[in-house]
């Protein structure tokens, strides 16, 4: 297991290299640079040139790339131009916000997605199945920002139950966190719920047709054991793959959700970094997020090994 883990960590290195190269290339390809945002509208061309020189932006791209990688090798992600703060520090500060929100949304996704998917499979082609799948289709089709706006109008503006936006850290006030995080988490989760519900339903249907399910019933096991143990333990293997994708989608979806609900997380940080061409912050922030998602994927692979004994023995 340890060796497996190390191997996977090693394969992460080229991934991170690629991602850093792509982000570097993309952000430098976008017209404009940080001097415009930093100097403001009133800055003269001479002042802008001076700013560019100070930031090292007048050097060739190759030199800038070299300096960026040299910094990375020393574990230095650079300083944010706009915030005047270390990139690592700025990102890590906002990480708990995005992570807690994503985790909340993941819990909603798993509970609702698995439950509706299993109900759909067990009651295949009944009214309950159709209702559940309609709900899933609705979740997949509705844009999350639109749903977020509708929820704000209904629950915050009309009913006044929840605040329209903002964020209270869980460590400060769990109830405050719940009040501010619930609507964002739901709007973030709904698409994934639909996705997971559909996959769970089809996987369960497939699994319930297997010979070993007939064996389990022939043994005289009660229905809840046949479904909850024998079928689910097998269905969870493909479902885990989808959960890995769901986590990635939740983190990337937080960019939009955090903007709509004005939540100071990574999504919002990166959005403003991109808009202001804060090169180091975009590069560093994305690199940290990529590293995180690579770790999530390694975690998913470890889950396979836990769920499927065949993987455990093959992965030596």
């Amino acid at each position, binding site marked *: 297991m340890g060796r497996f883990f190390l191997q996977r960590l090693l394969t992460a290195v080229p991934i991170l290299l690629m991602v850093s190269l792509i982000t570097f290339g993309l952000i430098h390809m976008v017209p404009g640079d940080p001097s415009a945002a930093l100097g403001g509208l009133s800055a003269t061309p001479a002042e802008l040139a001076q700013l560019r020189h100070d930031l090292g932006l007048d050097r060739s791209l190759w030199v800038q790339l070299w300096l960026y990688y040299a910094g990375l090798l020393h574990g230095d992600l650079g300083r944010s131009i706009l915030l005047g703060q270390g990139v690592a520090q700025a990102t890590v500060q906002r990480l708990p916000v995005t992570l807690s929100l994503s985790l909340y949304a993941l819990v909603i996704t798993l509970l609702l997605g698995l439950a509706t998917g299993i109900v759909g499979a067990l009651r295949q082609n009944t009214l309950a199945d159709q209702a559940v799948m309609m709900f899933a289709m609705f979740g997949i089709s509705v844009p999350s920002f639109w749903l977020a706006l509708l929820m704000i109008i209904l629950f915050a503006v009309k009913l006044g139950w929840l605040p329209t936006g903002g964020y209270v850290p869980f460590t400060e006030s769990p109830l405050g966190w719940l009040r501010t995080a619930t609507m964002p988490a739901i709007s973030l989760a709904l698409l994934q719920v639909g996705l997971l519900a559909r996959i769970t339903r089809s996987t369960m249907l497939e699994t319930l047709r*297997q*010979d*070993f399910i*007939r*064996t*389990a*019933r*022939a*043994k*005289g*096991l*009660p*229905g809840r*054991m046949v479904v909850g143990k*024998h079928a689910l*333990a*097998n269905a969870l*293997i493909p479902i885990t793959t989808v959960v890995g994708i769901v986590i990635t989608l939740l983190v990337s979806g937080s960019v939009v959700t955090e903007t709509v609900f004005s939540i100071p997380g990574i999504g919002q940080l990166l959005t403003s970094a991109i808009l202001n061409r804060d090169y180091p912050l975009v590069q560093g922030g994305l690199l940290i997020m990529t590293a995180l998602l690579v770790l999530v994927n390694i975690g998913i692979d470890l889950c396979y090994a836990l*769920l*499927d*004994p*065949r993987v455990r*023995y093959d992965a030596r």
Partner: protein
Amino acid sequence: MTLLEVRNVTTAFATGQGEIRAVEDVSFSLDAGEFLGIVGESGSGKSVTALTVMGLLPRPPARVAAGAVLFAGQDLVALPEARLRTVRGPGIAMVFQEPMTSLNPVFTIGEQVIETLRVHERLSPRAQRARAVEMLQKVGIPSPERRLSDYPHQLSGGQRQRVMLAIALACRPRLLIADEPTTALDVTIQAQILDLLMDLRDELGMAILMITHNMGVIAETADRVLVMYAGRVVESAPVDRLFERPAHPYTRGLLDCVPSLAADRPRLVAIPGLQPDPAHRPPGCPYAPRCPIAIAECSRAVPPLDPVAPGHAAACIRADRAA
């Protein structure tokens, strides 16, 4: 003593083209400790008969349209699922044709044997483990203690079928239904499993209902044989009698199909034609269209399963002349 009595059972499946009767008016009985074989081609209704007895057919589309399955005096067809569950395992156990896929790949062998005990019997964990080891030993799994923590993919097909048997035997059932238990196995392993089945029958005193399409397997194991064709029982006889004096032309056709090394049978004989489509069965004897001795009267009514000798019955109006 009669352990199982299947009385005029008809099992139907709802399909897009209306209801299809996979098993029609099937009756037979099985004494405690008896070894009954059911033979027939694919689609003759053997497996559906077995699954009807177990109550394992998905409902819908399947339903028992008529008849009763009496096991130790209880009608299993009328029993609610919760009660039926207590019969499966300690009453009737079943092993299937596909040992490669019949075990759950994500649980250990031990868990899959012990689980049955946990549901049906109140035993301490230690006693459960001991019983599992005992059963694995009985079915001929070497060093069973160590196998308990193995997963199915670590075993061969023959060993998996032995494990399936151990699971089936765990609660010491009174009847074991074996649906083509050796079809998917190598010939040498087949013989081992069949020997094992007969030994276990003698040792545990359970009855066995074995389904197969292999006449050779039946000849070696069964006390009595049912021959099924197109959803019906066409002949029922003690095994020796069936092989010596088959009364139904279909049975004789089946016996002719068995490859022989004898010099007087140089070529393999096949029964011409196909089993009738269950949605469009002919009005009279279902075998009439393929039967070499059919007469016009055969197509008028389904012939009843009538005795031709003590303990021997055939559903053929020309059985006397055929025999």
